[in-house]
Structure formats: C-alpha cells, structure tokens
C-alpha cells in the first residue's frame, strides 16, 4: 500500500511537470518553470513521512513538494498559469506556490532563503508545546549561502524540530556541485552537531525510511537532521534552456543520469495492473487539471495589489485634491 502511494505521488509529479512544460510551450504558463523531473522521489518520500499538520518550505523547483504535501493539482496548475482560482490567486506563480491550509508555507525563489523560515516555524511550533515538525527543502546550490549555515547553527542551538532536506541534483543552474562545494554537504551539517545522512534520492522507499527517522527524532525533541538526497535533474534548470540550449552537460551524461528513474524504481515494485490503474487515474486527474487551468479566469487588473498588506493601510491614501491657488495671490500686500 505504501509502495502504491509512493508511486502515485512520483507519477503525479511526473505527469504534472510534463503537462506544465507543454503549457509553457503553449504560452499558457507565462515566464516558464523549473521542472523537478527526476527528483520526484525526494518530495514523495519526505512528504509521506509527514502528518497533515506538519509544515514545509520549498524552492524555485518546488512543484513536487507542494503536490506531495497534498495540493490540488488543478489549482496548482491554475497558479502556474496565473489564474484567479490558483492556489495563490495567481499572485505567486510557479516559484511561490503556497497552500497554508496544508502547511505549505510557500515555495521560495531566493536560493536558501526558506531554510531559516522553516527552522523558525519549527522552533515556534515546538515552543507552543506541539510535536509538529517542519521540513526545509533546498538544493545543493543553497549550501553555499551564508544564511543557510547561520540557520543550521540556530536550528541546532534551539533544537528546532526541522528536517533539512538537501536535494542534490548535481547542478546549481550550470555549475557542478563539485565545483561549488568545498568540503561536503554532510560535513556542513555535522560541523553544527546536526546528524547528517546521505540518501538515494531516486528511491522513494529509501527517502521515506530516512525521513521517517528524522521526523521521529524531531518530534521527540531531538532537533534537526540533514538528509542529502542525491538525484539527477532530468530536465532543464529552467524551461528557458529548451530554446537557449546552454549545453553544460552532454547527451551521454544526460542519458546516464536518466538511467536511474525514480518512476521506474518505484513502478517496478507494483503489480503491472496496479501501476496501470494508478496511471489511468492520474491521466484523468491531470488532464482535468490542465483543462481547469486553461479555462480559469484571469485576475482582474484592478485587483493587482490585493493582499499587499494583511492589515490594510489606515487611512487609505487620499489623493491630494486639486485646488489651484492663483500664483502669488496671497503675496499682494
């Protein structure tokens, strides 16, 4: 059962991304996306270890995390398309998708920026006496951001119940991890006394097992754990590359990277009829999501700054009234 659920999540994200890329090409999704194809096992395994009341923060490559936490694919696709019924009313788009009702505190477009946010949320949840936990998803590119290392320190000091999930897909845009990271990702966490574990990020079962242990430790008050989940980014850094073709990795390398496919890793664990039933269900669900997004109304331009503030400005700014004063009128003595 758990295997079927994990497969369903991986396939859901795979199918969502395929359709999202098509919608980018069709001009329905403005601005492009950062597809997470190839990395679905991380989202599936980690979110399967969470309760509905746990919280997560995500990244610019975050569709998988948001969907795995339970977001409605139709409203998610509508968000990518910038439509009013989208998760964020079309105000966030691909890089900021959020669903607070499900504990998705938002995808974040600044590399590493959400790590201290997740850790701060975790600290506050523990302080309130609950056993809820937070997960910070981030990429290998984030481990060279100072604020991430500051957050490791503070999370460890304050025993924040946060699971630090580093998705190492081998590249920070075009830069290889080996060219960017002195020392190691695990070593960064261990330097702060944070237990750190390398995980096969293409195997949903392995991710679930590691995440379950880290979550249990956090719930019990043991503080943060880092999981470095290695996977290969099958698609571009951003759909922009589909036309620009910057060519920083060879076809042979890409083929080798794709050889270990989380969809097949998990699919092989299911009876063929179970797998095809899930595929059929998802095809219907995701086709409907695309239809929903295509047909969803655009936001009214008059509402462009709705929600700029949670507490509206008081008083509402009043335009200066036009009351012409005759030039030098009052200087006449």
């Amino acid at each position, binding site marked *: 059962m758990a295997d079927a659920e994990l497969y369903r999540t991986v396939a859901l994200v795979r199918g969502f991304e395929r359709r999202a890329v098509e919608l980018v090409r069709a001009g329905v999704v403005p601005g492009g996306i950062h597809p997470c194809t190839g990395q679905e096992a991380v989202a599936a395994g980690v979110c399967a270890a969470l309760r509905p009341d746990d919280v997560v923060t995500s990244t610019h490559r975050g569709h998988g995390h948001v969907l795995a936490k339970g977001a409605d694919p139709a409203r998610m696709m509508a968000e990518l398309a910038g439509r009013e019924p989208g998760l964020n009313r079309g105000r966030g788009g691909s890089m900021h998708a959020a669903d607070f009702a499900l504990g998705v505190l938002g995808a974040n477009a600044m590399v590493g920026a959400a790590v201290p946010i997740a850790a701060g949320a975790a600290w506050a949840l523990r302080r309130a006496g609950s056993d809820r936990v937070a997960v910070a998803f981030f990429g290998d590119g984030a481990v060279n951001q100072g604020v991430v290392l500051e957050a490791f320190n503070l999370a460890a000091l304050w025993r924040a119940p946060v699971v630090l999930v580093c998705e190492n897909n081998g590249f920070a845009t075009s830069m290889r991890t080996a060219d960017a990271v002195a020392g190691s990702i695990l070593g960064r966490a261990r330097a702060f006394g944070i237990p750190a574990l390398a995980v096969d990020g293409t195997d949903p079962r392995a991710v679930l097992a590691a995440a379950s242990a880290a979550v249990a430790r956090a719930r019990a008050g043991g503080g943060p754990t880092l999981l470095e989940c290695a996977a290969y980014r099958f698609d571009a850094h951003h759909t922009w590359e589909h036309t620009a073709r910057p060519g920083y990795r060879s076809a042979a390398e890409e083929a080798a990277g794709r050889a270990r496919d989380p969809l097949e890793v998990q699919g092989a664990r299911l009876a063929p009829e179970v797998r095809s039933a899930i595929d059929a269900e998802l095809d219907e669900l995701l086709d409907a999501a695309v239809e929903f997004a295509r047909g969803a109304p655009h936001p009214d331009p008059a509402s462009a700054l709705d929600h700029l503030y949670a507490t509206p400005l*008081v008083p509402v700014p009043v335009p200066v009234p036009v009351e012409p004063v005759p030039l030098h009128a009052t200087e006449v003595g």
Partner: protein
Amino acid sequence: MPKLSYLKALNRALGDEMARDASVCVFGEDVRVAVSNVTAGLAKRFGPQRVLDTPISEQAFTSFATGAALVGLRLLVEFQIPSLLFLAFEQIANQAHKFSLMSGGQARVPVTYLLPGSGSREAWAGQHSDHPYGLFAHVGVKTVVPAVPSDAYGLLLSALRDDDPVVVFAPAGALGVREDVDLAALGPVPLGRGRVHRAGTDVTVVAVGHLVQEALAVAGELAGRVSVEVFDPRTLHPLDRAGLAASLRRTGRLVVLDDSNRSCGFAAEVLATAAEGPRLRAAPRRVTRPEGAVLPFAPALDRACQPGRAGLLAAIEEVTGVLREGGGT
C-alpha cells in the same frame, strides 16, 4: 503628570503588549541584559522563552522570526545598529514583506523590527550612523519614526498589533526626549496619521524623528516673525498625504527636515507629493544629509553632514522671503 522618557515609553509599550498578548516574543542580540535598555526587565518578567538572545546571525534570526510569525507568533526583532538593516534587507524586504501578496493573502507576517538609536550617535563612524528609513518606505514596508515618548509608545503598540512587518526607527537623537504624559491615557497611535506639533500659517516644516525637536526650537525662535507649522508624519509609509495636504493648504509653503541622504530620500518624496498638489507660494526646500553621504568619524565632520537648526532657519527664510522683506501677509 509624570515625565515619560522615550526609551521608557518603548520599554513600557513592549512590556504592556507582552503582558496582554502571550504570543509576543523578542529576538535580538543582548536583549536579555537589555544593552539598548528597550528590553530592560522583560526577560525576568516574561522568561527566557519569550525574550531570546540570538547569536550574531542577523539574516538567520530575522527569517526565523518570519517563520515563527507564519505559524502564529508575533515577534519583535531588535537590531542594535541601523546598518544591520542592510544585512537583513533581503529577509525583510524580499521575504517577510512579500509573503502576503505572493501567497494571495494566505500569509501574515506580524514582525516588528526595532532600531533603538538609529542615525548618528556621534563618533560611531561610517558603519553605525545610517538612517535608512527611506529604503523601507520605498519598497513598501510599513515604516515608523516616532518623535516623542507618547508616539513611541503608541506607534510601537500599533506596530506589534499589525499583521504585517513594520520597521520602527527610534532615532538616537530622540531617545533622551521626555514628555509629561498621563500614563493611563497612553494607547495605540494608528499607523499612517501625522501629527501637527505646532500650528502655524506661514510655512509647513515637515520634520522626521528627532528633528521634530529641532523644528520646534526654530519655530519658537521665529515666533512673532514667521508662523511655523511643525508637521510630523510619524509614519513614513504609509504617509499621511491627506494630513500633509491639509497643512500645505493652510501655509502654502514647505520645508522638509530629514536626517537621511538627499537624493531619492524621504524629503524628495514629500517635495514631489507637494509638487503634485496645489501650487505652493514659494519653491519648497529640503534640509537633509548631503547627497550620497557617508558619515565621517570626527565629531565636527559628522555634525557637518547632519541637517540641523541653521540649515532649517536658512531654508525657512528662503521660502518666506516675502515675509522677511516685510511685504508679506
């Protein structure tokens, strides 16, 4: 009536709000021993789980506050040095501030960033003497600069109760100000409403923060010759444009006294707002730090870069030249 000092007003507002609302917590460096004095007594009164000393990791603890706020706490984050806002600008302007809009109204980030001792403290040199309130007003973060103790109390209370990030600048030059107040009458002062400290008919002086006292002193000196209205916006964003317009309708002349850099500064916004309104009787003036200034260390050099009474007096004489020459109202 008892005298209330500006610093004590901040301390009292924070203590009162922490007593009223158990979700209010404090983050900052050395806040338990209260190096700035704003948090004096609070760790003892409310315990270490509500007053947290942070390591020197401004970026991390600023975003920790954001995360904590997203799940229900209300935070006051104290920065000892105004230039730390440059370090945490990403975390405030690009993160905390944008969550509400980007999430389509799902998120609230009730965090107040407090700067006790902003601006020059004289001889603290280039990296401790900035007054970057204009940056926050520019990007749309609610920005407050109280001038007197009753406003320090009331505006900090409103900031803490607001569901958005608010930056509160408490200028070093205002910390020593004392005011006779009825303590029982202290209460929240709404963000976005200015205050006329002294009514006048010849010229409006818009003064920010500690410079309100300078403006009042100059207004006193000029009494009988020039009738100066001293308008304190109190909140730079949102700006009380209606209050400003009303004052300009009364006086028709404008001088802005603003302790920040001239180009693209707060005074420039006030002048632009006035220029978009009814025609003034004289070209407006602003008295500010020089364009692009970095405050030098030596006290005489530091002072040379700060706007003050002499510059204000000269500007008022310029815009009211007609009065000075005896041909006026």
